[in-house]
């Protein structure tokens, strides 16, 4: 079969498998991983009005995977009446973070400035992370909407990592590493991560050494978290399609190898 036909066959197969699986609406019970459970238990046991910082350190390209994860974590925090300070160390994460926080806050009747605030974006992430260790106001004199940070009631008594219980970095790259290496190492700030699945193995050493408190990873992680919250969201909805896609890839790998070894045997025979 020529290369172009094989390519289109593979592409079509993937599209058919995923779309068909997505059209079938079956709910799976996804057992949470130990890391997801740890993240959930931490937020669940925090006293009311504890201040948590959410940093949206990702691009729009990973939005389909990151959004269910971010929503699950935000909903949990708002549901437990925690105070949330949002910011972004990635330009695209700014609009996304602001959108997600505002929409989720509305679900729980939370008030901007009192229950949550979105500080905005700073381009030099190392400088921002280090600067907040001394003074959050100095790094963010105004919030994303242009209001002086001092005026927000939520910021009363909050000026550095000493006043932040946990930083939750929602990332699709290496920004979380800088949170761990600068905020964590220098200022002792606890850091938790919501990551795309592709980044999970890169952060395993930090998780193992307890430099990272917990990791919730990928669409699967979002489904696990939604299961713990007893809510249905984008994570759970996509699990059948995810399973089907994985099985399709496994079938492709196995088929490719069978063809390879058969051809090798034939060439060896000749």
């Amino acid at each position, binding site marked *: 079969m020529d290369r172009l036909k094989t390519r289109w066959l593979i592409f079509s197969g993937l599209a058919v498998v995923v779309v068909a699986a997505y059209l079938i609406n079956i709910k799976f019970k996804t057992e949470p*991983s130990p890391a997801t459970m740890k993240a959930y238990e931490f937020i669940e046991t925090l006293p009311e009005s504890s201040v948590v910082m959410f940093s949206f350190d990702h691009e729009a390209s990973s939005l389909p995977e990151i959004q269910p994860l971010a929503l699950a974590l935000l909903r949990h925090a708002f549901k437990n009446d925690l105070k949330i300070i949002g910011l972004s160390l990635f330009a695209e994460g700014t609009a996304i973070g602001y959108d997600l926080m505002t929409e989720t806050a509305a679900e729980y009747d939370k008030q901007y400035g009192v229950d949550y605030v979105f500080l905005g974006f700073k381009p030099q992430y190392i400088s921002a992370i280090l600067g907040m260790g001394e003074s959050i106001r100095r790094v963010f004199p105004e919030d994303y909407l242009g209001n002086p940070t001092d005026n927000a009631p939520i910021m009363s008594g909050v000026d550095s990592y000493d006043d932040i219980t946990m930083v939750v970095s929602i990332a699709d790259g290496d920004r979380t590493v800088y949170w761990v290496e600068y905020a964590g190492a220098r200022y002792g700030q606890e850091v938790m991560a919501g990551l795309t699945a592709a980044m999970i193995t890169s952060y395993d050493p930090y998780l193992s050494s307890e430099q990272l408190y917990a990791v919730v990873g990928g669409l699967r992680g979002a489904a696990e978290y939604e299961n713990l919250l007893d809510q249905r969201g984008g994570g759970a909805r996509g699990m059948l399609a995810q399973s089907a896609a994985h099985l399709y890839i496994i079938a492709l*790998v196995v088929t490719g190898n069978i063809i390879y070894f058969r051809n090798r045997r034939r060439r060896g025979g000749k």
Partner: protein
Amino acid sequence: MRTKIPLLICLIFGVIMFAQYFSSHELALSVYNSILEWWQIIFAFTLFVGVAAFMKNSLRGISRGKDTPYKIISLVGLILMPVLAIIGGTKIGSPFLWSFENMLAPMQATVFALLAFFVASASFRGFRARTVSATILLVTALIVLLGRIPMAEMISETFPKVTFWIQNYPSMAARRAILIGIGLGSMTTALRVILGIERTYLRGE
């Protein structure tokens, strides 16, 4: 002069920021905070330089008649976002945010989604158990792919357990070694940069 001044500035600021780590004196903190602020501001200008360079190259391309329609489309997009921000601000419901939500974000996400197809194609064409190393890679990938789907858990609890064991121990060990290597290399490079031995950042004007 043209090289010595930048090297001297690099040395001064590098030593200050390194030494400050060990001091909590008021003056040291004040200098530290100021440098962090200046760093932030100067970094923002690098984007503006990049934008100017992009516009210069696009206009040059248009004048030469190379890919003209596409270059015009990019420039229109570039100009549109600041215009929308000036007209309607950047809050919820603004035209700026609307453009981000309904044009930029969907296109970015879809470009990334294309990779799913190429990963599938690569899995069929390139993933061969030719050698022992390749076989180990292949088998590990298959275990992880199988272990992370809910269906596998329904068949047996062993699948996720094996997956997590592989992820948390042998895979993590290799990644840790890479991190340690990068850490040692980064420290050495940082020291070389501060001392002026490494000067690659001075090139490329």
